[in-house]
């Protein structure tokens, strides 16, 4: 089979968020919403997890959407359609449990919307009533608006600065819907850890089951390293095999945020080095 994985399409969704279609038939064949892949851009690259944004089993294609946050995503973004990436493995993690859901609020924040979208899409295809609340910092970084519209019975667009849709945070949008009398079987929140934490605070108040998707630091993605561990309901779980989705009311968010920042100084240094390297290449 393939030694490397071809980039079939690359599309910039906003200045820092990019979509790529990757030729990976083995991953596409089994992928389900909620699962993720691990990739390595090149021979010296680190392994990073990215949630599967979409897949086409017949064409053997998996879509990933990433935000340029560090050296690896910067390197990845330097590749173009037709180029190859070194490694692409998956699908990993447990698929979303969506069976039996009749009415769900899907909350997406920033690039997390890329992960929330396949979940909303699947729910919609199952006949579930889907309300989506998507939030972005500002109008110029809005992504997947049309896609969400197509799979939502109700959609609320929110921006922090009010440049598009409703001004405010997704928690406000969600709470308004709840107060307006919407009864959800479940809320699914995917975005920055801090956003998921606050969404959980809101839903806890109204006693609505809330599922969140964690994206911690990991290496292998198969349960081998334990780097992705987090505390859920007082027990240690591995996000890669027990998750990445968990009951948000049980997750120790403070610990998760702390662990996520473990290599911050290294990541910053590496990111700057990489950017400088690319600048030199351009010159």
């Amino acid at each position, binding site marked *: *089979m393939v030694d490397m994985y071809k980039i079939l399409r690359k599309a910039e969704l906003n200045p820092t968020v990019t979509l790529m279609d990757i030729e990976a038939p*083995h*991953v596409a064949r*089994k992928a389900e919403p909620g699962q993720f892949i691990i990739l*390595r851009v090149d021979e*010296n*690259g*680190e*392994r990073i997890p990215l949630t599967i944004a979409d897949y086409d089993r017949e064409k053997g294609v998996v879509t990933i959407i990433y935000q340029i946050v560090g*050296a*690896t995503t910067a*390197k990845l973004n330097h590749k173009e359609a037709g180029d190859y990436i*070194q*490694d*692409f*493995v*998956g*699908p*990993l993690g447990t698929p979303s449990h969506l069976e039996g859901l009749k009415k769900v609020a899907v909350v997406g924040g920033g690039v997390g919307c890329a992960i929330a979208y396949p979940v909303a899409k699947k729910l919609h295809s199952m006949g579930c009533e889907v309300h989506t609340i998507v939030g972005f910092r500002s109008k110029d970084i809005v992504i997947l608006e049309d896609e969400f519209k197509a799979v939502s019975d109700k959609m609320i667009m929110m921006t922090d600065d009010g440049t598009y849709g409703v001004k405010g945070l997704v928690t406000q949008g969600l709470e308004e819907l709840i107060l307006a009398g919407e009864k959800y079987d479940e809320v699914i929140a995917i975005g920055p850890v801090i956003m998921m934490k606050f969404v959980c605070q809101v839903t806890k108040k109204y006693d609505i089951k809330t599922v969140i998707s964690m994206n911690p630091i990991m*290496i*292998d*993605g*198969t*349960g*081998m*390293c*334990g*780097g992705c*561990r*987090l*505390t859920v309901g007082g027990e*240690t779980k591995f996000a890669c*095999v027990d998750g990445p989705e968990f009951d948000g009311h049980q997750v120790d968010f403070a*610990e998760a945020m*702390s*662990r996520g*920042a*473990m*290599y911050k100084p*290294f*990541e910053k240094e*590496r990111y700057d080095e990489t950017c400088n390297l690319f600048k030199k290449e351009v010159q």
Partner: protein
Amino acid sequence: MANMSLVKNKMPEQDPNVRNKNFNEVALGYTAEQAVDEAQRCLHCKKKPCVQGCPVNIKIPEFIAKVAEGDFEGAYQVINEDSSLPAVCGRVCPQESQCEKYCVRGVKGEPVAIGRLERFVADYHNANCSEAPAKPEQNGHKVAIVGAGPAGLTCAGDLAKMGYAVTIYEALHLAGGVLVYGIPEFRLPKAIVQKEVDTLKELGVKVETNMVVGRSISVDELMEEEGFEAVFIGSGAGLPSFMKIPGENLKAVYSANEFLTRVNLMKAYKDGSDTPVMHAKRVAVVGGGNVAMDAARSAKRLGAEEVYIVYRRSEAELPARAEEVEHAKEEGIIFKLLTAPTEIIGNDEGFVAGMNCIQMELGEPDASGRRRPVKIDGSDFKLDVDCVIMAIGTSPNPLIRNTTKGLETNRHGCIVTNGDDGLTSREGVYAGGDAVTGAATVILAMGAGKSAAAAIDQYIKGKK
């Protein structure tokens, strides 16, 4: 005339104070003269007890005789009949509890240095013989192997030599299993593992990396859709255990698996690697096995000033090989024996700032026959460390047992097999290595891979 020296020829090594700052191999290997001299210590006794001590039954006196004659390639060919990974085994086998344990010369003095001779022979072959092995005639049957570790590689090699079309499915991006992610470069250079994998490829074995069996493809699909007549599961014991003490999820607490994978597989010790690893100043490694020694010695090489092995029993019970313990001590690793961690302390930023421990004493023997460690009340103390590595064992990954119908496992999650041939509760599905035994040694996994290969051959030939 046999060489009647009571001691083994010493193997040259890097100086401890030099090697504890680099990742180059510690032991440098025999010269041809040393190898011949050591080979002449073998008495070629009739009973050949050493052979029974070897899990893959290498014809030890025969290969040693060839070394003594100076026919090193001939010696390699003898070993190669029974072992497909001699350069690996010569380095990581616990010879002292296997072949060398039974050597007659060991009754009075030291046994023949069988391991060092095996290593010499394999290295000689790798350095001097570039001839690709002849590709065996194909018999038209397909076998799939799950996991490219010692068990899988051995099983694949044996089946390929018999003419089977073998495909190995490996979850990571590189073949080798624990040989590439676990055992450090300074104990087993990765180029040696790569060479062994390349040899298998020359025999016609296909290696599919980035394939997680249980996720990317299932055992049932391998058999029903991909046309494999038999599957060998050698997926190892990769799931790390933690102690379940407070503070274990602080930053800079690693499982040994994670720490070693970052350092070995991801090459975090090299400047060019994108994978980070903590360069801690004071490191505690909890556990007393070979993995603990590997983690401690790696931490030292990454620049730690003080590295502790924290182990709850005494030196006599350390499960690590004596040689590894010796090497660790020479390199400045500090042994805190009869010591058990009770809590890991964090600082304001959530990083490790110390580890509370308690002193232990040995009480009555427990189920394992070893004396049970018992806490000494009031002996608590704090170890001043900024990184903790848990090396207290691993168990088999549940992925395959959860996704393979009718595959029987025991309460430890290990796959249940029917005696030595590795047959599982599923027809045509065999298993071996750590996936069956729980964490054990490279050579035992190889032995299991070898027996399973023979059983798979019989099974497929017996069908129809």
